[in-house]
């Protein structure tokens, strides 16, 4: 019954929209008929913009959909085993299989369909499978996740449920789409927000039931044990992936490098000792999901309790989900790096050990670039300038302390602090390039400098009344040539 109301409400979005436009037109006509030219002009301007916003809301946003071409499309001939699994799961769930399959670089899986008329009509169905899931889960855990997603579209008992869910997605999309735009879009969004709230109130328990129903369907297919472990493991996979991608892969990529291995390294990260404690912590206390305002997922403990209670035994042996993939899972790396990038040769291929050293070196190069430029090009010339009492010429003049009205001394001290950072980078760089020091990074992203500690000497060298003597002596003791090689 609720589902019927929900569908009626969805249709009502269009009714409401059209009624509003009719109202705007009516107001305009009334102004015209009663010979109020100023009022007419105003109402045309304001009414026109609002009507425009309404129409964009109804057509462009609700008409389009959240499904897009992303990740690596895989055809049936590319990944026959993965496709076979998906087909089998769709069959067991009792829904039609997706038309297209994508492997994406996200710790997530999803099914989407192109919808028309606020989700009332569905067309192309797409499935996205996160490569990190393929890398971390077992086949049975993955089956649970994928069957859950398919389950949203195939619960026989609630035939309209799919429509309700799709409508919910479409409404959220419409609201977020309207909200981030100009004032007249926001005005319309505010009106529809109330309508949407009504819709969500009507469908909240329905969506909750749907989530649990999808869990139940998936559990019947994958077994309780896989269901529980998949639910527990998903936040861990996500945490590991975020760490890998944001702290390791992306910085390297942005610095112009391409690691020789990606998902193999990701596996290394998951197994590394320094991360064990961190991932265990996530496993014990999964972070509260950052719920979207309209998210309707039940809390994780409730879901785990529900699938445990079903006590569905597992069938047959299990294996890593990655074994489903052809070519040792080469498709996973392609989600991040298209073959085109390699052919163009814009990124330099390096292994991870070199990469962590190179990345640390690159940040030092960045950090010392300005100093090297104004200081004559090398550590040696910088120290010469300091000895000549030309510290001021090395200080940055383009930065200001946090206080709005800093005195000359505060400006100078602030700039000195920045200079110390730059000089430290230049000293480390010089030492490392002459093999007197190296950097080491762990998977947690902590870089340590293995080399002589020259903090005091650097402070001395940058003091108004200091001297470079200590630093020079320390470097001479190491037989460092003070002209860096770059």
């Amino acid at each position, binding site marked *: 019954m609720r589902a019927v109301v929900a569908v009626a409400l969805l249709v009502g979005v269009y009714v409401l929209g059209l009624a509003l436009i009719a109202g705007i037109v009516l107001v305009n006509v009334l102004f015209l008929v009663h010979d109020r030219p100023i009022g007419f002009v105003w109402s045309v301007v304001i009414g026109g913009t609002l009507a425009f916003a309404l129409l964009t809301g109804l057509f462009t946003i609700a008409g389009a959909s959240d499904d897009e071409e992303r990740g690596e499309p895989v055809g049936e001939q590319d990944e026959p085993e993965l496709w076979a699994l998906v087909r089998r799961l769709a069959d067991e769930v009792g829904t039609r299989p997706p038309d297209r399959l994508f492997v994406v670089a996200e710790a997530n899986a999803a099914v989407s369909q192109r919808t028309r008329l606020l989700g009332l009509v569905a067309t192309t169905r797409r499935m996205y499978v996160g490569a990190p899931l393929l890398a971390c889960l077992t086949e049975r855990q993955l089956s649970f996740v994928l069957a859950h997603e398919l389950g949203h579209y195939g619960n026989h008992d609630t035939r309209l449920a799919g429509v309700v869910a799709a409508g919910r997605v479409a409404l959220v999309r419409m609201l977020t789409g309207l909200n981030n735009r100009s004032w007249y879009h926001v005005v319309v969004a505010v009106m529809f927000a109330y309508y949407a709230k009504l819709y969500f109130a009507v469908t909240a328990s329905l969506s909750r039931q749907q989530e649990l129903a999808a869990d139940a369907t998936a559990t019947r297919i994958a077994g309780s044990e896989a269901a529980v472990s998949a639910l527990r493991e998903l936040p861990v996979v996500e945490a590991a992936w975020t760490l890998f991608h944001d702290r390791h892969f992306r910085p390297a990529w942005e610095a112009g490098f391409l690691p020789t291995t990606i998902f193999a390294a990701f596996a290394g990260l998951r197994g590394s000792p320094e991360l064990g404690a961190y991932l265990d912590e996530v496993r014990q206390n999964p972070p509260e999901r950052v719920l979207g305002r309209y998210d309707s997922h039940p809390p994780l403990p409730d879901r785990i309790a529900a699938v445990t209670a079903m006590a569905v035994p597992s069938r047959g042996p299990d294996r890593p989900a990655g074994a489903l993939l052809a070519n040792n899972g080469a498709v996973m790396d392609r989600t991040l790096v298209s073959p085109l990038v390699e052919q163009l040769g814009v990124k330099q291929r390096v292994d991870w050990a070199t990469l962590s050293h190179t990345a640390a070196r690159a940040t030092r190069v960045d950090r010392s670039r300005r100093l090297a430029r104004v200081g004559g090009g090398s550590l040696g010339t910088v120290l010469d300038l300091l000895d000549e009492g030309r510290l001021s010429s090395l200080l940055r003049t383009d*930065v200001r*302390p*946090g*206080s*709005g009205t*800093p*005195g*000359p*001394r*505060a400006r100078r*001290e*602030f700039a000195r*602090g*920045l200079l*110390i*950072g730059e000089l430290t980078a230049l000293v480390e760089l010089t030492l490392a390039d002459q093999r007197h020091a190296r950097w080491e990074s762990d998977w947690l992203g902590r870089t340590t400098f293995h080399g002589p500690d020259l903090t005091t000497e650097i402070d001395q060298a940058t003091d*108004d*009344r200091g001297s470079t003597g200590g630093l020079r002596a320390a470097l001479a003791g190491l037989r460092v040539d003070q002209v860096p090689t770059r």
Partner: protein
Amino acid sequence: MALDPTRHADPERWGLVPDAYVRDVFPEEDPVLARAVTAASRGQWRQAADAMKPTWGDWDDRARVTLALAREGARTDEWLNTWRDEQPDRDLAAVDAAAWVLVAKEILGESDEEDHVDGFHRVLRRAERAARHAIHLAPQDPTPWWTLVEVAGGLSFDQARFAEIWHELVSRAPRHRAAHEAALEYWAGQSSDVMLDFAANAGPSLVLRAAFLLEDEDPLIWRTELVADAVDQLLAADELSNDDRGHLVLALYDHNRFAEVIEQFRALGGRADGAPWSRFEDPKGTFLEYRANSCRKAALKI
């Protein structure tokens, strides 16, 4: 502006100085200190040394003179360096350490950018070294210990480390006013409960200061019994500092005791230069706003 209700407030009718007389910067009133600061701004240190010397033993006075000289030292340090070259004494060391703290605060300002925070921390560590040097030169002087209390707040020392510093301070000057205010800031960064306990033990002035620091997170703080008692104690006192009056304004205003607020404003005259006004972005504007609103609301009450 036409709709601004405060334009009918007319503070002068209540015997308050005209708005135009209110300022948030006043010249130094102590003539010796004023001359010392002026000389320092010209690079001369002897007057500063002369101003510091007689403060030995009167620690609140020493804090006052140290702070005034340190303000100039945080602006320009040429005279401090000459002082160091010619007569590196305990007075210089105390001023020098206090000046480093002020430099650090200027580097931070209200910013939370990494460069500013890093600079703030670096210079505070420099201040710590300077304070330790001053302690070495003058083991009986609480002044550098007060500086360390400020450093502890800025670098968020752990409580054990703070307790050591605090113990050294109070064993030299049990009621050191400036250090108590600095300690309040330290506790503000640790725990508001401990901060209030600390303030309650330290007297009514500190209680109002603590309430002011807490009012953003706890708007009802002014209505607590602790604050109400502190207000009564202060109103019964023979003599009040301008800072106390400033905080009393906020407390009494929150209690809707506008006639008494106006009394405090009458005593403050045109001085919008102390606490709590200096904590606002526009000290004079805030002062005038409270003043005008109090007059308007007092008029409504009669």
